[in-house]
């Protein structure tokens, strides 16, 4: 059999098509081809190219694939120069070349068409946000349901004041680029204002240097806005460590040593959430948690008195400050969810009719 194969020629792949890769920064040409009729017998494919203007020039190898593969990307094309590609079958080191592709030029794009749906969604949501903010600004009252965890903030601060013990506010373990951390900073601002009024001690431990600087400014600004800048102490906001479980150990140490009356765990948390919350629970602290991390929510629900679940974390700042503009934005969120739910219902109904429109939700 091997003897026979040596004297046979192998059919090359057909329909080699080269296209500029869409939605990229240029320098990439995508290739596709139909498999060789002898695909099962060959070793693989070799991809070669040459500049289209150099018809006398030889093709140079740019890559290879195993058999059964029908696509390749040339990531080293020079923008503006037309290239021709051939795909050759390789068997025992011998090449059987396809017909060349049409000359193709790579170029960078100025708009990512695969993200059009995101652009539309952001535009619609921004318009809704603007509409409800304008409505709130006009003085129309907006209903917001009671969020037990946030209604308890006043009680939590008051409890600490009565007991003469500090309040521990952990702004999560996420760096400042996590939206949950930003939401936590907004809540910290509101909580710190109440603390400034009640004249209670505060401890804000941080895992990241940037969150440390931001939370320090947030607390300081809150004290200034309440007219009590002299009450702010540098030691209220602390930097601990970037090590995840080192941070958890340090929080446990603070809880056991300083016995805070109230613990806030608000932000992004991972596996350490229960270690901290359970320690606080065993120490008898009043605890309010809030996170958008679905996997950590059950731990907080179990170990804390109140838990802000998912979007409640993002609504907290508006709820606590009662600023009409912020309350207006909550309405936009609710209507945004309604639109997405309706879309999901319609798309599911269409899928029952064998019409698959889910592609419109796909983001590249």
């Amino acid at each position, binding site marked *: 059999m091997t003897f026979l194969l040596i004297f046979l020629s192998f059919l090359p792949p057909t329909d080699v098509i080269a296209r500029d890769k869409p939605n*990229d920064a*240029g320098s990439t040409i995508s290739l596709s081809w139909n498999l060789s009729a002898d695909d099962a017998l060959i070793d693989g494919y070799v991809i070669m190219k040459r500049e289209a203007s150099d018809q006398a020039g030889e093709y140079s190898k740019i890559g290879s694939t195993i058999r059964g593969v029908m696509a390749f990307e040339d990531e080293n094309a020079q923008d503006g120069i037309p290239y021709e590609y051939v795909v050759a079958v390789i068997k025992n080191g011998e090449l059987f070349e396809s017909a060349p592709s049409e000359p193709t030029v790579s170029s*960078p794009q100025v*708009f*990512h068409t695969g*993200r059009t749906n995101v*652009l539309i969604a952001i535009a619609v*949501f*921004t318009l809704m*946000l603007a509409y409800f*903010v304008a409505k709130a600004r006009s003085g129309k009252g907006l209903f917001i349901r009671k969020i037990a965890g946030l209604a308890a903030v006043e009680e939590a601060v008051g409890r600490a004041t009565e007991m003469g013990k500090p309040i521990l506010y952990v702004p999560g373990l996420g760096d400042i680029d996590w*939206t*949950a951390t*930003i*939401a936590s*900073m*907004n809540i910290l*601002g509101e909580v710190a*204002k109440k603390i400034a009024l009640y004249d209670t001690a505060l401890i804000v431990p*941080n895992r990241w*240097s*940037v969150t*440390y*600087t*931001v939370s320090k*400014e*947030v607390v300081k*600004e809150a004290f*200034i806005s309440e007219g009590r800048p002299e009450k702010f102490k*540098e030691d209220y906001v*602390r930097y601990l460590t970037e*090590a*995840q*479980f*080192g941070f*958890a150990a340090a929080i446990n*140490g603070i809880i056991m*040593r300083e016995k805070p009356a109230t613990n806030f765990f608000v932000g992004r948390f991972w*596996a350490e959430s*229960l*270690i901290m919350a359970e320690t606080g*629970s*065993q120490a008898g602290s009043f605890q309010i948690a809030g996170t958008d991390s*679905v996997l950590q*929510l059950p*731990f907080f629900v*179990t170990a804390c008195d109140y838990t802000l*679940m*998912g*979007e409640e*974390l*993002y609504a907290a*700042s508006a709820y606590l400050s009662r*600023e009409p503009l*912020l309350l207006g*934005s*909550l309405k936009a*969120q609710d209507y945004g*969810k309604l639109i997405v*739910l309706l879309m999901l219902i319609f798309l599911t109904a269409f899928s029952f009719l064998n019409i698959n429109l889910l592609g419109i939700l796909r983001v590249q």
Partner: protein
Amino acid sequence: MKRKIPLGICLIMGIMMIIQFFIPHPVSLGFASTIYKWVIVLMAFALVLAIGNLIRHHTLKIRKRKEDWPYSIVTLFGMTAMAVIGLIWGVDPDSLYQRIFLNILAPLGGTMFALLAYYMASAAYRAFRARSLEATLLLISAFIVMIGFMPFGQYVHTRFPAFAEWVMQVPNMASQRGILLGVAFGSIATALKIILGIERSWLGGKE
């Protein structure tokens, strides 16, 4: 002015980064890359401030002989020793710095993580006391999932593991996705509110 400048920077940079997301052109990618480099530089400055805070806090604690103050000596010694070792002998894979990290810090982190099992046991004991309808539902669903995922589950009933899987994949997944949907919108709204200057809690609220 103290608030207008940060709000202005936030607005301009926020909008530019949103636009950048939709433009794959090299100029746009280069802009994003430059911004990320600035972030690293800012982080380095912030780290100096953070370490200053750490040193000040523990020095004060030692000076005032506060509770457990000897641990502050350990903290300051550990931080200084690691910095000096790293600066003098480097941080290559075979260096002393890496050996200390792998043989002391990593096992300590692992030990803290291992403690999670005990915390889970005590939290589960509290959560699974059927004192309310919700707690009873939690107890029942936890019982179904735990038994169903154990080999013992199929001896209870051959379809018990499949039922446990259904509990995880249908009611549990549905509620998780509901929460995630709210999180996504909350996240977008928070970002837009900060970019547009509607949310100013991080600056101490309204002027």
